[in-house]
């Protein structure tokens, strides 16, 4: 803070009019930033301390030792490997299928004129804006009543199957991605596909060879965004999965909460473990994620 104030006083910087507001702004932002970080730092801090120490000194103290034992215990007792595997099994196909179907639809509505293209795009967009709870009961009942051979599904239905969660998430996300991608594809000059058409390229070739490569920035941004969306999805597994060991990690929070209720240190360690994959994406791909978010919101 002092460094900022000192440098702000040097005459070579901004004039006297702008100096004072900036100090106030920094003060406000620093206070807010600290408040914003406290919940995460508190979780991390609690997780680093053995329960024996926090029982003895209280949670609001600095005495005692610090180690990673809570993380090891939470990992082993919480069943994290299974949950993380389930998260991967759900997230990867959902994102791939969503982008595949959405890009095909976006290509068809944005590059060709046909009777219902605007109507369909509006309906796709509207679907994703609904609260998912509105669709939950019929989807649950539909999945319950669809009969599947036991060789495919051990429940005989689509309930309690990861593929059911993949289907529900894909259906719900296609609308949003179609909307974003159609805006993007619309701006690609017609000359490019026209030239290819003259050279004998069919519709599929235009899609695969010309439009998709040019849409790559939007696809990368959406893929990042969707990975986080699906990894963070709590609702569909809650409704569609009954066996605890089939839950993805975000919905498995329910189990952890019950299991570690009497041990805040373990609960905190579990929370930190769940944050880590998001944190990696955050550090590596924050720009992509932000681009994806604003991409969806940049039209109005």
């Amino acid at each position, binding site marked *: 803070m002092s460094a900022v104030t000192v440098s702000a006083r040097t005459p070579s910087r901004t004039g006297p009019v702008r100096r004072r507001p900036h100090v106030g702004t*920094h003060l406000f*932002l620093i206070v807010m930033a600290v408040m914003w970080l406290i*919940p995460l730092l508190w979780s991390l801090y609690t997780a680093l301390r053995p329960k024996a120490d926090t029982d003895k000194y209280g949670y*609001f103290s600095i005495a005692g030792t610090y180690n990673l034992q809570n993380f090891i215990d939470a990992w082993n007792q919480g069943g994290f490997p299974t949950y993380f595997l389930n998260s991967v099994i759900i997230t990867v196909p959902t994102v791939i299928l969503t982008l595949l179907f959405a890009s095909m639809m976006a290509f068809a509505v944005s590059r*060709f004129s046909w009777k219902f293209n605007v109507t369909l795009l509006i309906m796709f967009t509207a679907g994703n804006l609904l609260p998912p709870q509105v669709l939950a009961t019929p989807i649950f009942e539909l999945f319950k009543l669809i009969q599947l051979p036991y060789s495919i599904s051990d429940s005989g239905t689509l309930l309690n199957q990861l593929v059911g969660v993949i289907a529900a998430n894909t259906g719900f996300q296609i609308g949003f991605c179609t909307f974003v991608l159609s805006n993007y594809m619309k701006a690609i000059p017609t000359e490019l596909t026209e030239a290819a058409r003259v050279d004998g390229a069919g519709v599929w070739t235009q899609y695969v060879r010309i439009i998709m490569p040019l849409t790559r920035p939007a696809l990368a941004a959406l893929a990042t965004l969707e990975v986080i969306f699906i990894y963070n*999805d709590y609702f569909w597994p809650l409704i569609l999965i009954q066996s605890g060991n089939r839950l993805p990690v975000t919905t498995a929070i329910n189990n952890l909460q019950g299991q570690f209720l009497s041990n805040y240190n373990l609960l905190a360690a579990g929370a930190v473990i769940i944050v880590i994959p998001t944190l990696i994406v955050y550090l590596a791909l924050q720009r992509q994620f932000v681009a994806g978010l604003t991409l969806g919101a940049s039209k109005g």
Partner: protein
Amino acid sequence: MTDLNPISAASVTPAPRRHLRQLTGRDRGVLGVMIGLPTIIQVILVWLPLVASVVLSFMKWDGLSFTSFHWNGLTNYTFALTQSPQFLPALLHNVVWLLFLAVIGTPLGLLLAVLLDQKIRGSRIYQSIFFLPVMLSVALIGIIWELMYSQDNGFINNLLGTAGTSGAIDWFGNANVNLWAALVAATWRHAGYIMILYLAGLKGVDPSLREAASLDGANGAQTFFRVVFPAMAPTNVIIVVITIIESLRAFDIVWVINGGNNGLELLSVLVVKYLVGETQVIGIGSAFAVVLLVISLVPIVFYLVRTFRNREI
């Protein structure tokens, strides 16, 4: 955030498009599949369930087979809206949720965006910090704040010095305060989300507008409220829609805290309560879903009209 450039280019030139009748039969077939597959998925997983929710809300159904429906008239609605003790609290809580986000969460996000849009030292670091909770799942945010709010072990009561005493407030357990406590946790995420959208919106405002305003003698506040803010109309529409829809969708955090009971009832929670668990009554759950749907249609239609009114795709 320079990645945004190709996106803003997206609004510049709508390309003239090819009519289907100019295509060969094979190409028309390919295009038919490319349209058909996503559309069938939407029909089965979004539009039909939506219609089914409405139909089921007028039915008595045990959910055991596709044939055991009985017409039930408005009975489900009569029960849901007048006899269910949770309906009015849930509706009220949704309204409070919306007002809280609209009065505190969203303006806070706007304020952060405006402050960070200046050439300020460390702007990117601040942005990263405020944005961090947006990446987290809402369920996880519930857990993280549970650690903050815990009656005897939480950060807040320890800070207040009440932890372990009889005066310690159980922030998530006490029905008088838990809605507000949950809203603080929700705002922790919401403000960062709004900040990012407004930062993008502010970058899209033509700088010459500001210069013109300050040449005309407008001060900072006047420039912002009279010139910059109105110039962000498209962003503002989206922010309004997002704020309303987020408060209608609110579910995960209260479900994680206590299953949406005891002061934390929401419409979305009522739908799910009648869907899972021992209280399962499909017709009543669907009636609540239709109430939620009808309210949601207001911001959705507003947004769609604003977005699609002036354009042929």
